[in-house]
């Protein structure tokens, strides 16, 4: 397991840019390829946007973001204190979607599924939502300074 990068953010749409920058910088510290990192960035952005809008409903809250590598996997772990919700239980949408699909995160969850290799949800012992996004990466030689 490689070093982990961890940061806590306000659950605010204005912080999306900073969160993406953090995830990108932390991902590039490892050996992942740029395509995989870019896919993970999109997926993480969707997950966090859903937490802010649908989890916290625009109210103040915190989101913790942890980035690490586990062998050939880029792993991003998201923790929040919004009401308990498991996005992995949302059924895969039909493209185009059917008329009776319930209202949930919309395209965001679809993109998360398409762009990651695995999503693992749990609730922590202190009642937080934990979502782990995993992306297999093509390892490349890191440029030494």
């Amino acid at each position, binding site marked *: 397991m490689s070093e982990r990068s961890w940061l806590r953010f306000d659950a605010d749409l204005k912080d999306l840019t900073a969160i993406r920058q953090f995830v990108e910088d932390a991902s590039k510290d490892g050996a992942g390829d740029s395509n995989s990192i870019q896919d993970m960035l999109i997926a993480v952005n969707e997950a966090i946007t859903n937490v802010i809008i649908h989890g916290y409903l625009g109210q103040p809250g915190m989101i913790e973001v942890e980035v690490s590598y586990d062998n050939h996997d880029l792993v991003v772990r998201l923790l929040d204190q919004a009401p308990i919700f498991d996005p992995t239980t949302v059924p895969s949408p039909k493209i185009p979607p059917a008329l009776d*699909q319930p209202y*949930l*995160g*919309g*395209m965001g969850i679809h993109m998360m599924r398409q762009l990651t290799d695995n999503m693992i949800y749990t609730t922590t012992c202190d009642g937080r939502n934990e979502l782990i996004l995993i992306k297999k990466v093509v390892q490349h030689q890191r440029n030494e300074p």
Partner: protein
Amino acid sequence: MEINVNEFQARVPVTILHFQGELDASNYLDVIARVKEIFTTGTRHLLIDMSELSFMSSSGLVALHSAALTMEGKPLPDPEHGWNTFHSIGKDLENGSVENCKILNPQPAVSRSLQVTGFDKFLEIFTDLDEALASF
């Protein structure tokens, strides 16, 4: 994200909206509002230049869909209604590509968002400005 507007006279007048920066849930409503504004002032053919757009989320796709509907003179679904909006987009994806709203030079990261959601079939994408203008 900055939005710059330029007018070109091709076979028909074409308005180019140039996006510079990143498009996500924090600013996608600005795009919808801007497109409505230029439609009100007479724009009927829209080319969205994404050459300097470095990121686009699903909210950006909602904005693109709204832009396409606006250019077609159709009513917009409520962008806050997530899945219902997606359903509306899905129906339009079935109907094939749009004539009056097109995309120019999306960067690879943005192309990825377009591709995984089928928007690359919904909105015509060009890599050459002259070809894009001539297509209207």
